[in-house]
């Protein structure tokens, strides 16, 4: 095998990238597994403790609460992102100037950093100086400026609003490409059959977009399961640790409490969960080369 590879010129070109992935992804992954079996802390330690960290994780209420909150966030935001994203795609798919400009504007926040957008919304949501509160009061939705980040449910809603603004264009653009790739003749046929617009959406556009919708949902779910910045910046895990996400809780354990071994075990558990979705994503995206 090695001889065959040595003779293969192409392999030489791939080798640097393979070496990089091995050194900076696969090797750290192996280290992570080992770390998770030790009591390493940033201050020292490193005794092999077997599965103790995992046993501890299963009994750790804070970890389960963080995982549960992450799931809640994912289950809450994903339908919003997909539904609204698809609606906006239907709105902006036709190539008319106004719709194209709208499409470009909706996509704009996608290129902005999540740190910047979270700080922007942290200000908008502020009870004293926040513009979002002022607008909601002025149009009569709120009686007085709300405090967004002192209750877990309000915090979840606030973060969801800000992230929807930030990433809605992502799904929308993928859906637009999907809708535009649907063969025009199919639409024509339906037009002749006398189907109205919503019937065409329901019976033609939606079914033919299923693969794109599924893939976009997976990408979105993975992103939400790994959420960190928006909560770190806007809620700081408050109130009383109720808005820690999984990644945030791992960060707390590893880099604030220095419990690296324990943090590693939590990371392995999270990786295993995310792996289910990401494997599905890779399989789906490589299956059909069309689109």
């Amino acid at each position: 095998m090695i001889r065959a590879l040595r003779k293969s010129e192409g392999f030489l070109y791939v080798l640097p990238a393979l070496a990089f992935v091995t050194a900076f992804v696969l090797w750290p992954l192996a280290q992570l597994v080992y770390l998770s079996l030790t009591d390493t802390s940033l201050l020292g330690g490193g005794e092999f403790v077997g599965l103790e960290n995992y046993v501890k994780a299963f009994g750790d209420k804070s970890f389960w609460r963080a995982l549960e909150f992450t799931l809640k966030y994912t289950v809450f935001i994903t339908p919003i992102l997909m539904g609204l994203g698809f609606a906006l795609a239907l709105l902006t798919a036709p190539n008319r100037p106004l719709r194209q400009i709208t499409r470009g504007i909706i996509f704009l926040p996608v290129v902005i950093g999540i740190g910047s957008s979270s700080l922007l919304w942290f200000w908008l949501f502020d009870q004293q100086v926040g513009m979002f509160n002022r607008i909601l009061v002025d149009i009569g939705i709120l009686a007085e400026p709300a405090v967004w980040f002192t209750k877990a449910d309000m915090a979840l809603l606030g973060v969801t609003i800000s992230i929807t603004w930030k990433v809605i264009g992502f799904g929308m653009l993928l859906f637009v490409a999907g809708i535009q790739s649907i063969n025009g003749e199919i639409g024509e046929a339906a037009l002749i059959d006398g189907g109205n617009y919503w019937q065409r959406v329901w019976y033609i556009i939606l079914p033919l977009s299923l693969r794109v919708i599924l893939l976009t949902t997976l990408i979105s779910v993975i992103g939400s399961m790994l959420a960190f910045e928006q909560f770190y910046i806007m809620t700081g895990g408050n109130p009383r640790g109720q808005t820690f996400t999984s990644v945030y809780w791992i960060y707390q354990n590893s880099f604030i409490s220095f419990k690296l071994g324990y943090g590693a075990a939590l990371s392995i558990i999270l990786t295993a969960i995310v792996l289910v979705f990401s494997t599905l994503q890779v399989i789906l995206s490589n299956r059909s080369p069309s689109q």
Partner: protein
Amino acid sequence: MTALAEGTVRPAAAEHVSRAAGESRPVGYLVGAICIAVSTIMLAPLVLSFLASIKAPDEARASPPTYIPQSFSLESYLKVFEYQAGLWTYVGNSLLVAVLTIVICLALAVPAGYGLARFKMPFKEVWFIILLAPLMIPYQALLTPLYLTFSKIGLANSHLGLAMVHTILQLPFSIYLMRNSFESIPRELEEAAKVDGSNSWQTLRSIFFPLAVPGIVTVGLFAFIASWNEFLSALIFMNKETSFTVPIMLVSVRTGRLGSVDWGALQAGVILSILPCVLIYLLLQRYYVAGFLNGAVK
């Protein structure tokens, strides 16, 4: 903004969608009104943030806030420019990390894409799957072991180390894109070069490289934006004030002195931090959208 459409569109195919949208006149007006409403909502946070950044500090912390600035002042910007080590230190850090990320990404992805697209090799699909590993293993989980290793070899708190982490994030997408761009170059060109007696490296340099420029630009573009915006690993790895990147600096601007937030300065910082990304998006939209559609779903 029209380029955003051109990148995605197949003119004939899109026609029915347009007609399907039911273009009787009242419906047309309604759709137009919805478009304008949606655009307003999407732009409002950015516009409001910009307006807050040019208010005088007193007005910026007024409660309730004013929609239209009653005062004009660049004081908030001056504060950000003079923040701690000075804005240019942090911009310099971010730029250096981004440039290193672009360089490492291209140095790895261009040859890898070429190799995968143009050569037969044993176990090709196995190598390809390994190269996609960073897509499946969240980098958030790898930061602890990377941090420990980097500390030992002097890459913690270093621009190069952070660029390595950012490269992990961008590599699968970059390789994927380069593989596609090399695959789309006609085989005849390669044959001609072989007849001329060029070896594969010369062929890459003289024939493929120039033709793959759009792909290379796209890879660089995405690497820049990802690196400029990346937060978590910069937070963990860059633990000296003077080595902060822009997003980490922004968070410490907010924390401020004495626990009170300087709202005007924070918004000035937000505006400055998003400016490069917005400019790149507006100027290079064609590359950006093409790359996005090429890499995100496939």
